[in-house]
């Protein structure tokens, strides 16, 4: 347990003994994140339809936009998977390229989300308008904030990959951000369903 001896086989991120520890710790962190988002979803469900004087959601939600955002984020999750696949093949160049593509897609998603928020605010639905809109902006905003953080984090890891190469430590970091990115994707699927799909029909 005390040695940082490196194994010679197996996935790069698992070769040092602190690799599996960190990865398990991150899985548990994601469990806590599930609880965090569940609380926000529950809050949204409880406050659903409480518009007060503000515009109702179904008058503002637009399918094309929500679908585009979903498409961008789902594809970014796929490219992130390819990036980790490249890491397994120990191709630094492939890894960096696919991570950059992932980042670009993530930024695209964020761009649409910011546009969407600005649009709603212009239509008179702000975080202060009513209980429903507070819950909506907080739920989607928390997800967006996570994506933003992920973008910065991923940038830092790309810099490390370019500067220090594919070491077991950086491989572990790359694997962990991969987990994080897929998790955000899963949360978005729930947002797409619970917020946009249901919001448009009810």
């Amino acid at each position: 347990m005390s040695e940082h001896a490196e194994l010679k086989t197996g996935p790069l991120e698992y070769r040092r003994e602190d690799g599996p520890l960190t990865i398990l710790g991150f899985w548990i962190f994601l469990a806590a994140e599930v609880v965090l988002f569940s609380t926000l979803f529950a809050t949204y469900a409880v406050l659903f339809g409480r518009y007060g004087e503000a515009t109702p959601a179904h008058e503002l939600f637009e399918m094309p936009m929500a679908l585009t955002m979903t498409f961008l984020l789902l594809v970014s999750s796929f490219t992130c998977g390819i990036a980790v696949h490249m890491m397994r093949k120990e191709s630094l160049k492939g890894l960096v390229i696919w991570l950059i593509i992932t980042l670009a897609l993530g930024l695209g998603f964020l761009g649409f989300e910011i546009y969407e928020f600005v649009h709603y605010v212009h239509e008179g639905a702000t975080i202060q308008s009513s209980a429903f809109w507070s819950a909506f902006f907080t739920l989607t905003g928390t997800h967006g904030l996570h994506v933003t953080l992920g973008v910065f984090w991923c940038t830092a890891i790309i810099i490390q990959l370019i500067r220090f190469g594919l070491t077991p430590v950086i491989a572990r970091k790359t694997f962990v951000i991969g987990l994080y990115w897929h998790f955000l994707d899963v949360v978005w699927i729930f947002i797409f369903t619970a917020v946009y799909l249901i919001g448009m029909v009810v």
Partner: protein
Amino acid sequence: MWDFIWNDFLVTGEPIIYGAMASIVLATVGIVFVLTYFKLWKWLWDEYLTTVDHKKIGIMYIIAALAMLFRGGVDALMMRTQLALPNMNFLNSVHYNEIFTTHGTVMILFMAMPFIIGLMNVAVPLQIGARDVAFPFLNAFSFWTFFFGAMLFNISFVIGGSPSAGWTSYVPMAGPELSPEINQNYYLLGLQLSGIGTLATGINFLVTILRMRAPGMTLMKMPIFTWSALITSIIIIFAFPILTIALALMTLDRIFGTHFFTLAGEGMPMMWANLFWLWGHPEVYIVILPAFGVFSEVISTFARKQLFGYKAMVYAMCVIAGLSFIVWVHHFFTMGAGAGVNSLFSITTMLIAVPTGIKIFNWLGTMYKGRIRFNVPMLWALAFIPNFTIGGVTGVMLGMASADYQYHNTYFLIAHFHYVLIAGTLFGMFAGLTYWYPKMFGHKMNEKLGKISFWFTVIGFNITFLPQFFLGLMGMPRRTYTIEPEWMPLNLLSTAGAFVLAAGFVIFTFNIYYSARYEPREKTGDAWDGRSLEWATTTPVPHYNFATVPYVNSHEAYWDMKETGATTYDESKLEPIHMPSYKGLPIIMSAIMFIASFGLVWHWFWLAIPGLLGVIICMVIRSFDFDEGYHVPIEEIKRTEEQARGRKE
């Protein structure tokens, strides 16, 4: 500018506050003087402020907890003084509201929590045969976020004013309409800051216990305290994110004008109560389960018997943990959710008595036919059983929804939860601290003073809180700042008891000083004829804990080792030990978070935003830090062990 500082920034106009300000300034000057005069700054920074050693972090947690116990205790004495006689003018109503709010918040979040996390830090890695926790850097970060969260909450007393909406901070009382001052923001951000650290602790200990146990130690061969720490960590991981969100939503309501809990904009005030208790009830078990773990260890050690019903103890804790998440509505049966909902939560609440009862009988079973030694830790455990049972049985009474309409928000409830939290958690922490004290500091706490403090505490506790059950049945509501004449005799008795209880605590603290000076040094490492691995190490524990990790065959690993003559120093198996480096970043990062939170409390975005950027910069620095720690060479291990063990023989 000066006008703002005098009228809004500082709390002015009350002699008690001026006294507090003067004492804070004097204490700070005193500490700075002592550190400077004895040239201790470098020692403090190198040995404690930057440490990542779980043993030192545990000690810092416990010191902070004792300081907070003092602060919360002074609050309690002030409340009891005000309630001693009808029409007392010791505190006005606003001040009284602030005092009961800070008393509750400090005692639960800044006393009980760090106390249990402190004991977990001290004992768990030693009990499982690990060199440290899984993430030592994160562990230091946890401590410092807790510390600065507690400081943020505490400075509200003199800067800006204390929160006054109760430790539960129900809306609309705590919302922006009825509490427009900044006071409540201290509660929100102080708890948020320390909550981050608690969540990190939960993750840290779960990974530590799952992945870093000694060879041969399967889950069912873990010491029972480690089991309680494992279950507590799981509860923390699933409960604390709910608090994070609840606090964030109220912060948004108060600072950014949202409508989660407001009456305007179709918000729902009762949603706060639901979210708060969805965290709050599991929180109760977070602070009680480690105490159960301590009692199990202590009773088994001092009854000189194996723990009776080890497996039943483990399963009982698992069931309690599960049930703790499905009882939260019993805190507000009077919300009016209807008979169906209330019945369901009544049943789940009363179900908790079943696994808890199993544990009580197992402790009694452990003592049955044991040759009991009445040392101080054992006395706390013995006092715990009957007193906690009173708390538990009255809890079942409160859990019956229809009857609860009578008890709700009366002193009956106050008496109930003090019987579980003091007789359960606090006695448990005192037992644990006394029990592991020789492992932490190399000497026992003085037995005689310990016994005096024990009797003062237990008798004072019962004089304080037993009358409150009857006051509650007489209709005295909680959080009232004056009493009716007919409640006077029992209130006066209760106040007298509070001072006896306080004397018990003062003697306990004095004992720390007295023992450090006069108690004989503990040389064997096995102060109490212990049964689990922490007693296998030498005293003082080397910073790497175990020179060699033994193979574990049962949940009483050291008891087996003593029978076979094995030690944690097998020269043939020595290898260099990898240890993490000490880091200054956790304290710096937490200090910046403190500054950012302070800015947010005052709506000063010019301070909060740079503060947040500072936190992000710290995270980047951490990401680019590839420090791998260092290796302790075999010669140094040999030298350390032979010195410690040579002295022993």
